[in-house]
C-alpha cells in the first residue's frame, strides 16, 4: 500500500480526523485520551455498519484485529488500515513482526510497549488530545499530535561531541565532519546502545546524538526520557543518513525533490518495512552508474566526505551549528 489516507471516525459524541501515511503508526500517551474508544468505534462500524451509529470515512478499508484468529485474518487482509489495541498478546511476537513486514496494509497500533522488531518512525508516534473544537455543542474533537520532532531542541546548538547510531557510512561521514571541527565522534553500534554509550563515555559539553528517525521509533521513548533527565544532550533524528545526502541536493544529475516531498506516494509498504531502507536503495540505485558517486552503505566513498558535500549537508541540518 502507498499514499496518505485520511481517516474520519465520528459519533454524536466524539470526532477523530487524522491522516495515516506509513505502514506503522503508533498511538500512545496518557490514559483516558481516547485510543481504545477510537478502535471500539471502528470495530462497531465493521460489525454493524450504519446500525452502529458510527460514521467512518476513508478511501480504503479500516478494520480491527484482535487476538482470536489474528494470523489467518492478517494473511487474508490487503489494502486496508488495520487498527490494533493494546492487550493483544500477539503484538510483541516474532510472527506478528514478520507478517507486518510482508504486508500490503498499514497498521495503527495503540500501545506504549517497546516493539523493537518493528522499525517504525519517530514521526509516526502520536498522542490524542481534546482540541476544544466542536462541530456542535455535544461533540468533542480528538486531535492527533506528533510526540517527537526531528530534533529534541528548539534552539540552535553547537555540538562538542557526536555519537552516531550508525557504524557504517553515516559514521564515516560524521567522523569527517567532526574532525573538521576538532571534536570527537563515536559510534554507538546500533540503536539500542545509545543510552549505554552515553553512560560509558566521560563527556563534557554538548553532545549531539544522530540516529535514523525512520526506524528509531521503538527506542525513542527511552532516549527522550534519558535526555530529559540529563542535560546537554540533543537528539537529531532525520529520516536517515541517506535521506540527508539526498535532501542536500549535492549529487549531480539527481533530482529526487518530488519523492522527498511526499515519500508516501512512492514507497510501497509491502516492499519496504521502513522508509530508511527505501532511501538506501534510492541512493544506491540513483548513483550506480557513476564511478565517482556510486554509494555503498558499508563504506562511505571518498567523494561524500569532500568539503562540498559536507557543506551542503550541514545546511540541511537546521539548528545545528558546525562552524
Amino acid at each position, binding site marked *: 500500500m502507498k499514499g496518505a489516507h485520511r481517516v474520519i471516525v465520528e459519533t454524536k459524541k466524539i470526532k477523530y480526523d487524522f491522516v495515516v501515511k506509513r505502514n506503522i503508526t503508533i498511538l500512545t500517551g496518557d490514559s483516558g485520551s481516547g485510543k481504545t474508544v477510537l478502535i471500539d468505534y471502528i470495530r462497531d462500524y465493521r460489525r454493524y455498519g450504519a446500525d452502529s451509529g458510527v460514521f467512518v470515512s476513508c478511501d480504503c478499508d479500516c478494520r480491527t484485529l484482535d487476538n482470536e484468529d489474528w494470523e489467518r485474518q492478517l494473511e487474508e487482509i490487503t489494502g486496508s488500515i488495520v487498527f490494533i489495541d493494546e492487550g493483544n498478546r500477539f503484538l510483541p511476537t516474532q510472527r506478528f513482526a514478520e507478517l507486518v513486514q510482508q504486508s500490503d496494509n498499514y497498521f495503527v497500533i495503540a500501545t506504549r510497549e*517497546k516493539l*523493537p522488531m518493528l522499525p517504525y518512525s519517530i514521526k509516526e508516534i502520536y498522542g490524542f488530545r481534546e482540541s476544544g473544537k466542536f462541530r456542535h455543542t455535544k461533540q468533542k474533537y480528538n486531535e492527533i499530535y506528533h510526540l517527537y520532532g526531528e530534533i529534541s531542541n528548539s534552539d540552535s546548538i553547537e555540538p562538542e561531541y557526536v555519537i552516531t547510531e550508525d557504524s557504517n557510512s553515516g559514521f564515516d561521514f560524521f567522523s569527517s565532519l567532526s574532525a573538521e571541527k576538532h571534536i570527537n565522534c563515536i559510534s554507538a553500534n546500533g540503536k539500542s546502545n545509545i543510552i549505554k554509550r552515553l553512560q560509558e563515555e566521560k563527556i563534557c559539553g554538548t553532545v549531539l546524538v544522530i540516529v535514523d528517525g525512520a526506524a528509531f521509533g521503538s527506542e525513542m*521513548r527511552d532516549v527522550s526520557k534519558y535526555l530529559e533527565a540529563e542535560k546537554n544532550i540533543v537528539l537529531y533524528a532525520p529520516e536517515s543518513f541517506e535521506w540527508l545526502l539526498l535532501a542536500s541536493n549535492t549529487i549531480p544529475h539527481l533530482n529526487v525533490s518530488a519523492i522527498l516531498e511526499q515519500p508516501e506516494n512512492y514507497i510501497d509498504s509491502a516492499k519496504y518495512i521502513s522508509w530508511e531502507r527505501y532511501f538506501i536503495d534510492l541512493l544506491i540505485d540513483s548513483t550506480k552508474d557513476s564511478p565517482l558517486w556510486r554509494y555503498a552503505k558499508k563504506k562511505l566513498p571518498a567523494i561524500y566526505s569532500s568539503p562540498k558535500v559536507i557543506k551542503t549537508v550541514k545546511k540541511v541540518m537546521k539548528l545545528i551549528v558546525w562552524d
Partner: protein
Amino acid sequence: MLTIVYGDAENSIYNTSVYFKNSYESEWFDSELAKEIVRDVDHSDVLSGECIQSPVLGQIPPERLSGGVKTLLLMLNEPDKIFNASTCGDNCAKWILEIGKRQDITINLRHMMDFGMNTRFDIVIKNGGEVVHSMKELIPVASQYLNAMRQEQD
C-alpha cells in the same frame, strides 16, 4: 513498597482490560482512593459501583473506564497479582506510587514509564534487585532490562 519487573514477567496479567471486565467488584468503587483515581485520570465521577459519569461518553459501566484506571483498580484490589502496567499512561504514575506506599505491589512494565523527573521514590527493580529513588537512577537500569526483552516467540 513498589516493585517493578521490566520486560517479560511470568504469571503476569497482560490484558488487564479483559481481566478487569470479568473480575471487578462494585465494592471496589466505594473507596475514596478509587473515586479520586477515576476523577483524576478519566475526569469522570463514580455514581455507583456499576455506573460512571464520563464527560465525553455519558453514563458508562466500569468496563468502559480507560485501560489505565482499570489497571490501577486491579493493583489496588488484587495486590497479590502482577499486572501489565504498560496499559497505564504517565498520568497514572503518581497513583502507582501512591498505591505502592499503601501496600506492597509488584507490577510489570514493558516501556519506560515516567514517574516524574522531580519526584523522589523508592522502587525495587526485581530483575536485578536494584533500588532506585529518581528517574535519573531508574532510566539507565530500566533501559538495560527493556533492551534485554526479546520479542516473544509464538
